[in-house]
């Protein structure tokens, strides 16, 4: 019988909480089943590290916060055919992107006494550092999206998320509308595919999965609705730092980021 060559995949973690990797691990049996179809050659949650010269698919979780991280990231790109970004940190900067909107050095010295010796880079999104083939968004990812992508690639098919807003799934789930209650909810703008998991628990959507393509008009409309509920643009932008949606909203509203930078 001819030996079946299985695609080689790698899951790398840069600086992050590793929650997206755990979301994959939490698939338990479904995750183990994957190993029938592909070789998991790099996944440090299950094995001590090995070094390979090539991967068919590399998944990258986390953010390049150190020079080491950045070098690893560039190396991964070089030796992998397909690079998939895993989760909000890699995709949009993660919660710590907030430090880009503050005086980064001051924050460093607030946290560390010997702050001069601490590497304290600005947070950059992985797609801005290297070319990325696919993005699985979210904080954390929806592991079902991960499975769908892997099986698509195994069948040599392209994969893309539907450009449906979170609102769509939220309404199917018959949740009460938090936007109508006056809360900052980005459901109408945010990329769905998460089953509106936050709203199912009455947590408003802050667009951890990113904002839909070509949504500038929708962004402006939503900002007007929120302003009518009494929120200032500054309030909204501050909340939108949380999952990295702020720059996209600023771009739609033509706001210059530097002018708004807090000291």
């Amino acid at each position, binding site marked *: 019988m001819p030996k079946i060559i299985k695609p080689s995949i790698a899951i790398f*973690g*840069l*600086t*992050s*909480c*590793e*929650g*997206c*990797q*755990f*979301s994959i*691990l*939490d698939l*338990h*049996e479904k995750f*183990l089943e994957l*190993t029938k179809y592909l070789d998991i050659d790099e996944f*440090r*949650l*299950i*094995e*001590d*590290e090995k070094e390979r010269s090539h991967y068919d698919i590399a998944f990258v979780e986390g*953010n*390049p*916060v*150190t020079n*080491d*991280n950045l070098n690893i990231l560039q190396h991964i790109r070089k030796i992998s055919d397909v690079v998939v970004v895993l989760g909000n940190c890699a995709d949009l900067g*993660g*919660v*710590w992107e*907030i*430090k880009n909107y*503050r005086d*980064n050095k*001051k*924050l*460093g010295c*607030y*946290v*560390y*006494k*010997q702050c*001069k*010796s*601490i*590497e*304290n*880079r600005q947070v950059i999104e992985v797609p801005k550092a290297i070319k990325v083939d696919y993005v699985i968004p979210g*904080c*954390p990812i929806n592991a079902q999206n991960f499975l769908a992508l892997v099986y698509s690639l195994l069948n040599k098919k392209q994969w893309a998320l539907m450009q449906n807003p979170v609102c769509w799934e939220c309404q199917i789930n018959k949740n009460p509308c938090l936007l109508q209650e006056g809360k900052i909810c980005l459901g109408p703008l945010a990329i769905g595919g998460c089953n509106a*998991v*936050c709203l*199912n*628990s*009455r*947590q408003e959507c802050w667009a951890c999965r990113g904002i839909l393509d070509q949504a500038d008009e929708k962004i402006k409309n939503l900002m007007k609705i929120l302003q009518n509920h009494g929120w200032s643009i500054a309030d909204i932008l501050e*909340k939108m730092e*949380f999952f990295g949606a702020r720059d996209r909203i600023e771009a739609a509203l033509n706001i210059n980021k530097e002018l708004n930078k807090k000291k």
Partner: protein
Amino acid sequence: MSIKTIKINHIAKMEGHTGFVASILDGDVKRAKLETLEGARLIEGILLGRDYFEVPMITGRICGICPIVHFLTATQAIEQAFKVKVSEQTTIIRKIMELLQIIHSHSLHMFFLSLPDFFGIENDLKFIEKYKKETAAALRIRQFAIDLVEQIGGRVVHPLTIEVGGFKKLPAMIEVQRKMKNYNLILEDASALVEFVSKIKFPDFSRKTEFISLSDKNEYEVLAGDIITSSGQKMTKEEFYKQIKEWHQPFEAVKRVSFNDKPYFLGAFARINNNYKQLNPQAKKTWNELGIKLPSYNTFYNILAQGVEIIHCLEEIKRLLKQLGKIDQKNTKVKILPRAGEGWGAVEAPRGILLDYYKFDKNGKVLDANIITPTAQFLANLEADLMVYLPNVYKMPVSQRRQKIRALIRAYDPCISCATH
């Protein structure tokens, strides 16, 4: 004179990234140090100026394996600062969440991350292949816990329902009860796993240290209560916070902590050493059968302690659900009015006490924040253990020596993402 350096660049199968380096001079260990490779995220820094309700959401994202404990600790500190008293319902459900957190983290760590070390197997998939029955039991336990976390918290990684004052939404109790139908099977699985782990020949190792844990006169405390040390000191979380010393060495994104200028141990083994008497009946019986006399200072037993705690936590959840069934089923969350003040939170994470401190202005915006994770607290103790342990292993062949060193480090269940926040 001979100087020998032992270096391991990356230690996998742990939360976060770390390496290890030691220097040995003429057979004497001069230095044993964990070098964290995680980038600085400046979590305390980015908290400054944010609204109180964002705090747990941000600190929860320190760690993907123990977000529940970060949520609960921050929430507890904020409630102290705002002088909020939550309902009995909230306290019980939070306790259940924390017990579930301990179960799912322990079952992952004990079985998948630490145990293969004692069998000399480096790849988990090979370990799983070899021990199918035990793997199935470990996965069933973990699945039971994460299903319940999802039911109560809305999501496993970064749960959603926990908030300051109570729960955004209560779980559907009928679903919770449905999951509990597997309780007896899961309890059997847990006992079987402890028996499996107990057959390991653990390294003969002992270094006297201080065990620190939460304590309460009525129960095996995980969520509130005072703090006790194995040498008999008792204090509030505030006093503990003031008595520990946190220090930072240049070029390191992790801080270290000492109590009375000495390293100390936290986590499952510390809790059992300190609070053995309050273990639930079956957990206590299981511990007794292991025949380990307390106090015991063999750190490798931490994974046995984790196994026994899984049993304890299961029994405790059953008891708490019964209690919950007897009280008001309406959501009794408390309305929050921010006020200027400061507060502390101390909760038993799977790997030991997580300690948070926050100060707020009158609008509930953060003025000051400090998060002291269990890994940061026990790091100095782990290094002290390694100093004592290395002479036993340093003459072994490189690969075997590496395995032994990694086994001790992993037995602590360190979480480097947490330590480097």
